[in-house]
């Protein structure tokens, strides 16, 4: 009975658990700091468990629909509502479940890492509460089937993220970075809200499935599409709207930066959900596909070339995050560009999309790992300046090993996970347009060059006198990095398992607009 009730309410629990955890954290923190930390980790573990169960449910039974406030969760359209699903509905398909799983796992790694990395900071009650709220925002964005609800979770995501960016007051610079992030997020959020209003004004509904089923692609729909696309691409850090990322990513505590990467990916998910599910074949898919591809190529190239001359290790990594987002945009953009041509979609479009989606989870793992290693360096040396660092390989061997794993993965070196997803992108994109694939490969080479520089600057060389006393970071930080490293390796060694289990269903869910609509409206 209890088990059945639990399984029936997994989508609600996925949000309720971290939300309860967030609001209770400051209260528990009043009693004991240790209890608060254990509570936060326990909540994140429980959230991950719910995400795993929900993903298993989605993969075994198909899209899970959950109607809040209804007599039964699957009662999406009440008898007296005129055929409109008036309640808030979560629609968790394979793509949403995939994103929720990735976010929960990174969240757990970050939480364990924070145990030690945040231990010397003040304001930990707020830190852990906001961290859990950020997780709530991400999970809500990827699970909801309601446009307004999506906006609400986007705002939770943005507010918690901005507060966390500013949480380490560093001569006011962190506050400035948080303010920039907040202003741009608010502007983006306003445009998303305005776009939703346009859609609501035309179709009288907020549910994604209902709007998708009625979509006519009128001029107003086109305006709404542009606002949604550009605002969410900006939140994802696409060039040339990426300027906030090096500021915010470098000034946030490293644990938070790792989760901010996932928060940006939730916005990327929003882009994909809007173009594939909300608009689908009604839009000019070739034009929008090419817009996404161009944003992707710009992000890849500008991101990596801006990373190379950076002296601040976190700014450098932030530019690489921009660059890697480009791969995802490129892969999925190619899939969208050929969406209306079944033959091309089957030949390379689906593989390109799978490569782009696979890169999302791979990037979440290795980029999260790299930011955590940067945090470990800062934790022990107090600097992020590559010109001041050196010789730490003598004293921080575990951190160095984790850094090597992350660096090789992001550079697309086999057998790590970045190689698998990049290979899928290269080969499929080459069939679409060889020049794009060549650019993607050149960017990978530059990425490797950049991380060789970072590796040399931080770890190689003789032990420097100023870091003579430096020792390895505490165990919780090592465990957090080890968790992500393990997945980077496993996903790299068994890529087809991951693709079969998570990626192919996710790409299929994005393409199958009819299936999404039918899951909510019952084929109506």
């Amino acid at each position, binding site marked *: 009975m209890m088990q059945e009730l639990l399984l029936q309410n997994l989508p609600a629990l996925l949000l309720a658990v971290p939300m309860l955890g967030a609001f209770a954290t400051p209260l528990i923190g009043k009693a004991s700091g240790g209890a608060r930390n254990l509570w936060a980790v326990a909540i994140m573990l429980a959230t991950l468990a719910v995400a795993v169960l929900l993903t298993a449910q989605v993969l075994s039974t198909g899209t899970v629909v959950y109607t809040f406030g209804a007599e039964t969760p699957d009662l999406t359209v009440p008898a007296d509502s005129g055929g409109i699903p008036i309640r808030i509905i979560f629609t968790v398909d394979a793509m949403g479940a995939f994103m929720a799983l990735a976010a929960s796992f990174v969240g757990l790694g970050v939480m364990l890492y924070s145990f030690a990395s945040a231990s010397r900071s003040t304001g930990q009650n707020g830190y852990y509460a906001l961290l859990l709220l950020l997780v709530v925002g991400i999970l809500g964005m990827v699970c909801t089937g309601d446009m307004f609800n999506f906006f609400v979770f986007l705002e939770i995501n943005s507010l918690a993220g901005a507060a966390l960016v500013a949480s380490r007051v560093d001569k006011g610079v962190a506050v400035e970075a948080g303010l920039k992030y907040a202003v741009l997020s608010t502007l983006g959020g306003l445009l998303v809200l305005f776009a939703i209003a346009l859609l609501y004004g035309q179709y009288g509904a907020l549910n994604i499935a209902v709007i998708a089923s009625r979509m006519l692609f009128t001029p107003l729909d086109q305006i709404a599409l542009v606002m949604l696309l550009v605002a969410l691409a*900006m939140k994802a850090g696409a060039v040339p*709207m990426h300027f906030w990322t090096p500021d915010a990513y470098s000034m946030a505590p490293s644990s938070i930066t790792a989760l901010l990467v996932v928060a940006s990916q939730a916005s990327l998910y929003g882009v994909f959900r809007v173009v594939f599910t909300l608009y689908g074949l009604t839009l000019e898919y070739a034009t929008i596909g090419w817009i996404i591809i161009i944003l992707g190529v710009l992000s890849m190239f500008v991101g990596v070339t801006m990373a190379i001359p950076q002296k601040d290790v976190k700014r450098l990594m932030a530019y690489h995050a921009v660059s890697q987002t480009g791969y995802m945009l490129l892969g999925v953009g190619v899939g969208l560009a050929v969406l209306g041509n079944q033959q091309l979609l089957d030949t390379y479009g689906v593989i390109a999309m799978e490569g782009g989606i696979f890169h999302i989870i791979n990037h979440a793992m290795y980029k999260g790992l790299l930011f955590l290693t940067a945090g470990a360096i800062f934790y022990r040396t107090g600097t992020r300046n590559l*010109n001041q660092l050196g010789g730490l390989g003598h004293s921080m061997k575990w951190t160095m090993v984790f850094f090597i794993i992350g660096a090789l993965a992001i550079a697309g070196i086999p057998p790590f996970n970045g190689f*698998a997803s990049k290979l899928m992108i290269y080969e499929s994109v080459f069939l679409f347009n060889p020049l794009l694939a060549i650019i993607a490969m050149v960017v990978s080479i530059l990425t490797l060059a950049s991380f060789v520089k970072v590796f040399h600057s931080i770890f190689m060389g003789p032990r420097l006198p100023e870091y003579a006393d430096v020792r390895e970071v505490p165990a919780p930080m090592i465990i957090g990095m080890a968790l992500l490293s393990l997945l980077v390796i496993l996903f790299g*060694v068994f890529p*087809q398992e991951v693709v079969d289990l998570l990626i192919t269903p996710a790409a299929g869910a994005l393409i199958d607009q009819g299936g999404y609509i039918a899951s909510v409206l019952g084929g109506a």
Partner: protein
Amino acid sequence: MLDAYTLQTGTGFWDPVVWIVVFLVAFLIALAIWLLGEKEYPRDTQAVKPFLSGNVEPEKADVHMRAGNLYWGFTEAMKGYYSRLVPLHTGVLNDYVLWFLGVMALVFVIVGVAA
């Protein structure tokens, strides 16, 4: 069994397990060659010191290559590119907003024309 681990990429495939086996074999061969090397060389003599044309070897910390010295040639060769790209990253919020709005206006035009 290996097929289960082979990533199908549409037009090709990638087998990480085979790659790891080949890597391990190459590593073992390299290790074997290394083990065949001279083990009893005099460690604490001039034999292990670098020869710098008769100059005294500086302290190790003094010759550590810092990040700022790396890829100077690359950035110098790309000076024309960087001189345009780097100044765009002003750090000023107003500029960030302008870029955002500018991109949105451009995409409006593209989508409008295409439709």
